[in-house]
């Protein structure tokens, strides 16, 4: 899923300072699962904003909505009927959702209530961790199912650098060394000998963000 976290409330209050009638839009997809932008978070944020504005002596009207997904035109259109009555949309979807709001409602400012962080999963209650950078050319079958682009701080392809220590990355003692994980896993799979010793060729990053904004067109699905 796409993992995001709330912006500090002070930042949000500053961002919406000049508005007194806003839509606060959550999303029931990834950001609801990672407890950053679902229905529950919409309610909590609305109360926090109302409280902050009350302290300031300025009332604010907040219309709370939580859409099925903010990355799909049909759901984003669901606020069409009343969007024009508000001065801004504060979206607590991921960055995709905020931009979909901006693209669909040309004259209403779309503001981000979250910092969209990464593609990852949950490790335990309240902890999420990055797994994929969306480089557009998956090599997980060659690296024991562990991604060197994401898990190695330097995205190295040919083994750990000299900063790997007791399974941890030099960047932080809390961070696992991605290459230690890959080596352990290749060994467990009996693939270490042939995989690790082979030179990994230079990667083509043009399928990554480096090729510019990416787009996928499926002719078989087009109407």
């Amino acid at each position, binding site marked *: 899923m796409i993992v995001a976290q709330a912006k500090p409330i002070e930042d949000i209050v500053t961002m919406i300072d000049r508005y007194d009638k806003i839509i606060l839009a959550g999303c029931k997809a990834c950001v609801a699962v990672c407890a950053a932008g679902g229905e529950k978070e919409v309610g909590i944020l609305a109360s926090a904003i109302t409280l902050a504005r009350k302290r300031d002596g300025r009332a604010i009207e907040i219309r709370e909505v939580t859409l099925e997904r903010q990355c799909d035109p049909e759901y984003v259109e669901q606020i069409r009927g009343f969007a024009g009555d508000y001065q801004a949309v504060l979206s607590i979807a991921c960055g995709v959702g905020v931009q979909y709001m901006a693209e669909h409602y040309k004259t209403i400012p779309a503001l981000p209530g979250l910092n969209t962080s990464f593609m990852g999963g949950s490790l335990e209650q309240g902890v999420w961790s990055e797994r994929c950078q969306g480089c557009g050319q998956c090599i997980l079958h060659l690296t024991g199912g562990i991604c060197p682009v994401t898990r190695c*701080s*330097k*995205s*190295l*392809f*040919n*083994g*750990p*650098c*000299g*900063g*790997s*220590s*007791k*399974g941890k990355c*030099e*960047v*932080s003692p809390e961070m696992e*060394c991605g290459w*230690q994980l890959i*080596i352990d896993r290749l060994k467990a799979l009996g693939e270490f000998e042939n995989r*690790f*010793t082979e*030179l*990994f*060729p*230079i*990667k083509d*990053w043009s399928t990554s963000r480096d090729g510019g904004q990416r787009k996928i067109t499926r002719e078989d699905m087009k109407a």
Partner: protein
Amino acid sequence: MKTGSRLEKVLEKGAFAVTSECGPPRGADPDVIREKGKLLEGVVDAVNITDCQTSVVRMSSLSACLILKEMGFDPILQMVTRDRNRIAIQSDVLGAAALGINNILCLSGDHQRFGDHPQAKNVYDIDSIQLIMTVKKMRDEKKFLNDQEMTKAPVLFIGAAENPFADPLEIRALRLAKKAAAGVEFIQTQCIFNLDRFAEWMREVVDMGLHEKVAILAGVTPLKSVGMGKYMKSQVPGMDVPDAVIERLKGVPKEKQGAEGIKICIETIQRLREMKGVRGVHIMAIEWEEKVSEIAKGADLLPRPKV
């Protein structure tokens, strides 16, 4: 491959090579490099110029290389893949060769998290082993990474670093094998304080026959004090400083710890010289360049051979 490298010539002659390093200043003053250079005159076969080591902004390695080249040194251009993509890397390799630089050391570089600009975006378009492949391809095939021909190939002696002390220990010789397969010709190792561990790595290297493909220069650093030893042990990732070394420094009065550190360094070189496969020594006297000549003299490495 014959390059213009003095280091390559010394190694080919079978002499025990000596290299050292020079960290460029955090400013535009060329005299800092010249002064550091003066301390190394007649003491080393080649001198590394670090490339924004520990991710701290400094004068570029290539510029400092040129300043030392003008003084008669054979500089080793250190190049990290942290700050450059393949376009900049290939461009700098051509530029270095055009300016008469004969040696390159291919590194991934310290992560910017440690440096003075932790907010920076890193590049890592390619890794250090792929940098070796890149330079080799440019030199031997006269081709860019896109397979297009170039007008004149950059003739550089290709080096890299290896850390026998980093985890996982069991892949460290294998990783050297990968570097050898990629085309590296000389290796400078991480600072050696744990001679037993280094000897173990070296045995693996020799067993794999890698010492015949790659000239291994063993890295040494003189410790100035107990504090420096403790710092390197606990704060520098991938550094192995045994307690016995720190205890030995503790055994002498504070004002004599530096001299003891130099003594340890000289003894280390003497032991390294006896190890099969060790073809030279790389003396990294961190901000203590004035001691390199004393160490080289003490270890009976002077005068340097004429090539």
